[in-house]
């Protein structure tokens, strides 16, 4: 599903840009079953879709360290590396 070009100008010269890991909860869903045995987070867990502050892009991630969630909540991105993962994963926690 990832794109190889910029869909706005069709350039193949895409590059990484630094943005602040801050944003607003656009929507969320709470999983009440462990659908994925390989996931280090156990149900119930909340996945948030976050609208970034710096660019008009929305990113998914599991919400950690929060009791409740609502659209419009301010969140900050954190990077976690689960024991069974070879990759670092973006997750979100309530903004300080």
């Amino acid at each position: 599903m990832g794109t190889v070009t910029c869909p706005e100008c069709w350039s193949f010269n895409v590059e990484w840009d630094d943005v602040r890991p801050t944003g607003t909860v656009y929507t969320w869903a709470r999983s009440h079953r462990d659908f994925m045995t390989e996931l280090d987070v156990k149900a119930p867990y909340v996945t948030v879709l976050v609208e970034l502050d710096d660019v008009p892009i929305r990113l998914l991630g599991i919400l950690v360290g929060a009791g409740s969630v609502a659209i419009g909540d301010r969140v900050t991105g954190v990077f976690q590396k689960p024991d069974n993962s070879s990759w670092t994963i973006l997750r979100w926690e309530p903004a300080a």
Partner: protein
Amino acid sequence: MTFRGSAAVVGVSDQHYPRGKGPRGERGMLVEAILAACQEAGISPRDVDGFTSYAGGDNSGPVLAAELDIRELRWSTMVWGGGGGGSAAAIVTAAAAIASGQADCVVAFRSMAQVSTGRLGYAKYYFDHQYLPHGISTPAHVCALRTQRLLEHDGVPRSAMRNLVLAAYHHAQANPEAAAYGKPLTAKTYDESAYIVEPFRLYDCSRENDGAVALVLVSAERARTLDVKPAYVLGGAQGSVGAYAARNENDSAYTTAGGSGTSDSPGVASRVWQQAGVKASEVDVVQVYENFSGPAVASLIDHGLCPPGPAAGDFLTLDNLIAPNGILPVNTSGGNVADSFVNGMGLAVEAVRQIRGTSRNQVRDGSGADTSLYIGGPMAPIHSSVLLGSEKTL
């Protein structure tokens, strides 16, 4: 050449079983369904010259041509992308082939068996690395994200979802073939059922069945020579606007089902109404694909069958949604939640029954419906719907 009224559904078969309990694998059940649909239409299976389907599977046109030993294969088309979102498109594609003279007799179908393709509860084959690390692994998850915003931001009340489910269960009580036949659902039981992926409770979720569904389409001229009441294809469309649901949750029409339009692109729903020359307010009965209740509510909104936002709750009352006298009778066989789920194609068969006057929850009893809409899978990367009509509407 005009598409409207050029082709008609003249034979249907909907064979379903509890999941994992189908008497044959996908291909066996499918061949059985095609033979039954042809027999009902009074057409020799050897006359079939086209096949259309959606959501993948191994039973391609050439394979089925060999199974049935048809004379010539002229049309073999899979609707690309989006799972059940392409279900109505399979019917529309069959009709388009006939209307343009590419084929004479096309079968639109879907077959599913747990033994062949497993379950949808963990759709790892579909969700990629943009989703899986975040605990998003099923259709329930992606539909839950959109539905939560539909409820919390757009203000559609939860009662709209609940009443859609209660209407389906109400209808299933008159349908002995429905899984929920003899198992009525109360609002209290719905409200107390467990969450699966919030905001969806157990009863908001579709069933999964083994089964096969086939619809046989021929030209309007040929349909009139057969001993069945044709359900004419008045209009149909497939597609999406603005890369809906294919841009990793970054599309703009986020809380729609994928059938709405923009200022410069009409969208699936408008194209169907425009082709058919029918207004949303004029439709007699609707079968709306409910993978989950919330996305189905979004489909009704996209199609102009129900107002958006908080007003959706005022309109989507149980009384309004049930046949025969509701303003908008929906899912009159019980739908995916209370009848059966073969990737939603059973709903298309019920749409045909409403035109024929043979539904267990018939609207306009005695004459049958004049207009009957089937809306395909919502909140998927492709969306589609098809409007069927009686002879009177031509």
